[in-house]
C-alpha cells in the first residue's frame, strides 16, 4: 500500500503573465526539500486555479490550510523550515483568502446526484415542506416569506410573498403555481444549472408556494432546448411521486399537490408571464395586457403565480433556516444571494452565487479572476437584452435591484457579460437589439416597428453612414418603445441602446463623425495598412494573408491592397512589431 504524504504545498500563480514563474518556484521547493530532507513527507503540487487572484504566487499548506501570498524564491526555504517543520506562521507573507461566494441556491449543485432523491433528502431535502405542512398556516408561510425579503429572480424583482398573498386572497375552485424555466437571455444558464443540478429543490419550492396560495397543481415550464433539464426534472417528479411526496395527503396532512412539465419552444417572449400562460393553454405565445394580473386571473382564468427557478430554489432553505436568517444576507432592499452566469472577456467563465450587495468589481476581479489576457476592461452588461452596459467607473456600485436600475441597467435574471477594450459598444447594442427584433412577437407596433428602426439606425452607424441627428432619433424611438410597448420585451428592448448612449456617447460620435471604430470592431470603418517605420520586413503578414493581397518583398517592404482586403485581421494578429495599423 502506498502511503499518502503528511503535508502538501499547493502552488498557484494567481496572476496571468509568466507561465515559467510558477515552475521555477516549484522546482526550487523540490530542490530545497531534497537537500534538507522532507521530500518523502511533503508533496509540492502546482495547481491551475484556486479562486485567488492578483496575489502573486500563492502557497497553500495542507492539511493546516495556511496560505502565503506573494511568494518569491527567497521565501521557499523559510516556508519549509519555519512554516512547515517548526509550525510557525510567517506573518510577513501570511494571508487569509475570503470566499466571496455564498451558495444557497446552488447549495446542492455539484454536490449531490440530481437523479437520486435520496441524495436530496440526505441534504435536508423535503424537510422544509414537512416543516411547513406541520407547523405553518398558509398565512404564516406568507409572513415568513415577507420577513425573508425574497424578491423574484426572474428579472422583475417583485416581492415573492406579495404575489403569493394576492393569489391566496382570491377564492377559486382551482389555483396554479408555475415555475418559469424558460430562460431565454443570451448568455444565461443559471436556471438550467439549477434544474439539472438540483431539480428537487425547485419542486419543493413549488410545493411550499402551492401550499401558501392554495394551489394543488403546479407546472414547470421548461424550454425544449434544455433536454437534460427536462429529463432530470421528469425523473425527480416520478421519484417524488413514488415516495408520496407529490400526490394526495402529503405527509398525512391532507395537503394535495402534484406537478408536471410543459415544454416551451424557445421563444424569448414566452418567458413573459402572460405569453407563458397562453403557451401552456395551447395558444400562440403572445403576451396580453395586464391587469388582470395572473395572480388574480391567470392560467385558464384561475389565480396563478409564476415564479422563477432560482426564486423557488431559495424557498426550502428559507424555511429550514428562517426568514430572518435569509434577510441577514444582502442589502437593505435586496436580500439573499444572486446567481450569475459570468461570461465574456472574463478569465473564468463561470456560474457564481454571491451575496446581494457585492460590488461588480469584486465579481469580475475576485470571483471571475479578472480580464482575459490582461486586457483593459470596458464595461459589463447585466440583465441581458433588457439590461444595459455599466462602464468601469461604476464598478464599485453594490449589486442590487435599485442600484443597477439607477445606473440604467437591471439585475435581470443573471446574465453578466464582461467586455474589454476590443469590444465595440455600438456593436454590442446592435447585437442585443437584433436579438429583441428577432424575438419580438410583432403583436404591438412600438416594439415591432420601433425595434426594426433602431436596429436600422445602429447598422447605419456601424457601417459609417450614421448622421449625428440619428442620436436624437435613437433616443426618441427608445422612449416611445418604453412607454407604449405591450410587454416587457418591447418596454426594455431599447435599454442597451439608451445606456450605451449615456455612457459611451464618444464612441458613437467617433463612428458617426470620424468614421472610426475606436475598438476596431466595425470592420466597415477601417482599413489595414503597413506602418513603414515599424515594419521589420519579416514577411509574416504576407505569408499569413489568406487572400494574398499583401504585395512586396523583404527588400522593398509590404503593401496591403485595401480594395481586395477582406479585413480578416490575420496580419494584425500575427505582426510581432505592431506594424499593422487599422
Amino acid at each position, binding site marked *: 500500500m502506498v502511503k499518502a504524504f503528511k503535508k502538501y504545498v499547493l502552488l498557484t500563480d494567481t496572476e496571468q503573465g509568466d507561465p515559467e514563474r510558477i515552475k521555477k518556484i516549484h522546482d526550487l521547493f523540490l530542490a530545497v526539500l531534497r537537500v534538507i530532507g522532507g521530500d518523502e513527507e511533503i*508533496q509540492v*503540487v502546482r495547481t491551475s486555479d484556486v479562486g485567488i487572484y492578483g496575489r502573486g504566487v500563492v502557497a497553500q499548506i495542507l492539511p493546516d490550510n495556511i496560505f502565503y501570498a506573494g511568494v518569491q524564491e527567497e521565501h521557499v526555504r523559510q516556508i519549509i523550515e519555519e512554516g512547515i517543520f517548526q509550525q510557525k506562521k510567517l506573518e510577513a507573507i501570511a494571508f487569509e483568502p475570503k470566499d466571496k461566494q455564498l451558495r444557497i441556491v446552488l447549495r446542492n449543485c455539484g454536490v449531490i446526484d440530481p437523479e437520486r432523491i435520496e441524495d436530496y433528502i440526505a441534504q435536508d431535502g423535503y424537510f422544509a415542506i414537512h416543516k411547513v405542512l406541520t407547523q405553518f398556516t398558509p398565512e404564516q408561510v406568507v409572513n415568513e416569506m415577507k420577513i425573508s425579503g425574497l424578491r423574484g429572480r426572474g428579472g422583475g424583482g417583485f416581492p415573492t410573498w406579495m404575489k403569493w398573498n394576492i393569489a391566496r386572497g382570491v377564492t377559486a375552485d382551482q389555483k396554479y403555481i408555475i415555475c418559469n424555466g424558460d430562460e431565454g437571455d443570451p448568455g444565461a444558464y443559471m436556471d438550467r444549472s439549477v434544474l439539472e*443540478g438540483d431539480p428537487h429543490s425547485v419542486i419543493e419550492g413549488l410545493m411550499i408556494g402551492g401550499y401558501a396560495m392554495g394551489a394543488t397543481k403546479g407546472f414547470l415550464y421548461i424550454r425544449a432546448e434544455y433536454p437534460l433539464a427536462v429529463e432530470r426534472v421528469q425523473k425527480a417528479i416520478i421519484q417524488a411521486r413514488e*415516495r408520496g411526496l407529490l400526490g394526495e395527503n402529503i405527509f398525512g396532512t391532507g395537503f394535495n399537490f402534484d406537478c408536471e412539465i410543459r415544454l416551451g419552444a424557445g421563444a424569448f417572449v414566452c418567458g413573459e408571464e402572460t405569453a407563458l400562460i397562453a403557451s401552456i393553454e395551447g395558444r400562440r405565445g403572445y403576451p396580453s395586457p395586464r391587469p388582470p394580473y395572473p395572480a388574480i386571473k391567470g392560467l385558464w382564468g384561475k389565480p396563478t403565480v409564476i415564479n422563477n427557478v432560482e426564486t423557488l430554489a431559495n424557498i426550502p432553505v428559507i424555511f429550514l433556516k428562517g426568514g430572518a436568517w435569509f434577510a441577514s444576507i444582502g442589502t437593505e432592499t435586496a436580500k439573499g444571494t444572486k446567481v450569475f452566469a459570468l461570461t465574456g472577456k472574463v478569465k473564468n467563465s463561470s456560474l457564481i452565487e454571491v451575496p446581494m450587495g457585492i460590488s461588480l468589481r469584486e465579481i469580475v476581479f475576485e470571483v471571475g479572476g479578472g480580464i482575459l489576457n490582461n486586457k483593459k476592461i470596458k464595461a459589463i452588461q447585466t440583465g441581458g437584452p433588457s439590461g444595459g452596459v455599466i462602464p468601469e467607473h461604476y464598478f464599485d456600485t453594490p449589486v442590487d435591484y435599485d442600484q443597477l436600475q439607477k445606473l440604467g441597467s437591471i439585475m435581470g435574471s443573471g446574465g453578466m457579460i464582461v467586455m474589454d477594450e476590443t469590444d465595440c459598444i455600438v456593436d454590442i447594442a446592435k447585437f442585443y437589439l437584433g436579438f429583441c427584433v428577432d424575438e419580438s412577437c410583432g403583436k404591438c407596433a412600438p416594439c415591432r416597428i420601433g425595434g426594426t428602426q433602431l436596429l436600422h439606425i445602429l447598422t447605419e452607424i456601424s457601417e459609417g453612414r450614421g448622421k449625428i441627428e440619428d442620436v436624437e432619433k435613437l433616443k426618441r424611438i427608445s422612449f416611445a418603445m418604453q412607454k407604449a410597448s405591450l410587454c416587457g420585451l418591447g418596454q426594455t428592448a431599447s435599454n442597451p441602446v439608451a445606456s450605451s448612449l449615456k455612457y459611451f456617447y464618444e464612441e458613437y460620435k467617433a463612428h458617426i463623425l470620424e468614421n472610426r471604430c475606436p475598438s476596431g470592431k466595425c470592420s466597415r470603418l477601417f482599413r489595414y495598412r503597413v506602418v513603414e517605420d515599424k515594419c521589420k520586413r519579416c514577411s509574416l503578414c504576407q505569408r499569413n494573408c489568406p487572400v494574398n493581397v499583401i504585395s512586396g518583398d523583404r527588400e522593398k517592404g509590404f503593401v496591403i491592397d485595401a480594395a481586395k482586403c477582406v479585413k480578416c485581421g490575420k496580419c494584425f494578429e500575427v505582426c510581432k512589431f505592431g506594424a499593422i495599423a487599422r
Partner: protein
Amino acid sequence: MTSVLPGSAAVGEELVMAKITKEQLDGIKAQSVGDSGNWVRVGMSTCGIAAGADKTFEKLTAQMKERELEVRVERCGCAGKCFAEPLVEVAVEGMPVVIYGRVDENVAVEIVDKHILGKKLLNDHIYSVKAG
C-alpha cells in the same frame, strides 16, 4: 439502499400510495453514505457533458471495475467552474479533497494511477481545494 419503496402497496383492488413520513426521511438521511470513503464525482450537467464529461465518467467507471478499486464513481450537477470542464472531484481517505479540471479520458486514467493508487496529487489540473 432502501430495497422496498416505502409507499406503494396494493390494498384490495386499488393501488394506494402510503405516505412517506418524517421518520422515513430521517431514516434515508441517516443511511446516506454522504462524503465518507473513497469516491470520485463527475460534473454531468450540460456544460460538463458538452466538454466530454460523459466519456470521463465512463472511463472512470471502467477503470474502477477493471482495476478492482473500491472507489465510488458518482455524478453531480454544475459546480460552477464551467471554464475548466469536465470537472472531477476526488476524495481519497487521508488526502485533501480536490477538484480536477479539464479531465479528459487520459487525465482520468492519470487520476487513477497517480492520485488513487499512487496517493499523489496531480500537477496543473487542480481547480479547487476543499480544506482539511
